[in-house]
């Protein structure tokens, strides 16, 4: 900015400031209406504002003092509540803070007694059978087969239990039993197990 421009700017500023005192009046009618509305708004602020303003203007008590007083009252009430609750539950608090000491149980020593005839163990010459089941099943010599097909000529009804006793020769209906292969004998065929011929099933004599 050149010096000439700066001087001109100062002249403009002086000209503007000379208009500062130009009289602009707030029209009286508008002003009165607006003031009346504002006073109505002040009155409508409510009882709270009036109470606050009365207390504040008369210097009875300051808002800051009221705030501090309120905080003190709240703290006092809270402290009294804590004391009352702790008094009511004093037993539980004591148990919580001081746990009950465990009573030490001393082992009682029993005097040694000589075994007498009454409490002596009676030995039995026979072994006592155990009731516990054995894990290893004992081999049974009999097998129970439920069969819907019965042997021709039999008198038992279908579905009845048939007691089959395995023999050396192997009866024709010894289901579920594996025959011991004989040396020189033919191999069993799974497909015609039940219809095998005598030459195949009959062991060599």
């Amino acid at each position: 900015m050149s010096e000439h421009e700066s001087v001109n700017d100062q002249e403009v500023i002086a000209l503007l400031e000379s208009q500062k005192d130009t009289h602009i009046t707030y029209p009286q009618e508008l002003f009165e209406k607006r003031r009346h509305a504002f006073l109505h708004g002040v009155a409508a602020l409510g009882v709270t504002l009036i109470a606050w303003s009365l207390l504040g203007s008369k210097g009875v008590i300051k808002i800051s003092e009221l705030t501090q007083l309120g905080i003190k009252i709240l703290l006092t009430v809270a402290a009294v509540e804590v004391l009352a609750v702790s008094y009511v539950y004093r037993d539980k608090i004591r148990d919580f803070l001081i746990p009950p000491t465990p009573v030490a149980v001393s082992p009682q020593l029993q005097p040694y007694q000589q075994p007498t005839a009454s409490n002596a163990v009676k030995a039995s010459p026979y072994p006592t059978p155990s009731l516990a089941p054995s894990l290893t099943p004992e081999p049974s010599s009999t097998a129970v087969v439920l069969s819907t097909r019965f042997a021709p000529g039999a008198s038992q009804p279908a579905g009845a239990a048939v007691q089959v006793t395995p023999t050396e020769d192997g009866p024709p209906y010894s289901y579920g039993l594996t025959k011991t292969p004989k040396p020189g004998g033919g191999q069993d065929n799974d497909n015609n197990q039940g219809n095998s011929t005598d030459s195949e099933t009959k062991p060599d004599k």
Partner: protein
Amino acid sequence: MRDDFVLLQALQNRDKRALVEVFDKYAPAVFRYAFRLCGSATEADDVVGDVFMQLLEQIKNGRGPRDNLRAYIYQMAYHRIVDKSRREKHLAELDDNIRQTPSDTPASRYERTAVYEIILAAIQAYLTEDQQHVVLLRFFEGLSVHDTATILEKDDNNIKVIQSRGVAKLRQVLDIELMKEIL
């Protein structure tokens, strides 16, 4: 009438009489500020009403001015005027017939000085919105740079730049020598 510091203390204690005193002291100033920018007594009166109703709400909600009563009230007026100006600008864009030329503003009813009318017309016609507010607040209302910065929520240096550009613009459009002769 009590000064601003005493009024501020009374407002913080929600003194009802202090509220009335603040209205009597600042309502005419706000009216002048708004009138110079709006150019209408009715619109300026609306701005006054909005500003002081907002002040009541602030006091009611426990807020309000804390340290600078004058800047606080001018700041509320500034926001109202800017809102009104932008709303009217939007309407004027919709209908150009609404736009008023500076020469036929109602300001002529209140100002008899020709120089004042020319200056005001130049401010309204050639300066930006920020420049208008800065020039009016600084030179017509007599506020400091810092108070003006507070009102416009800007930095002090920013206000100086805006002021400098506004004055430079007025220097270009105003015939200073002619006005000196008139005055």
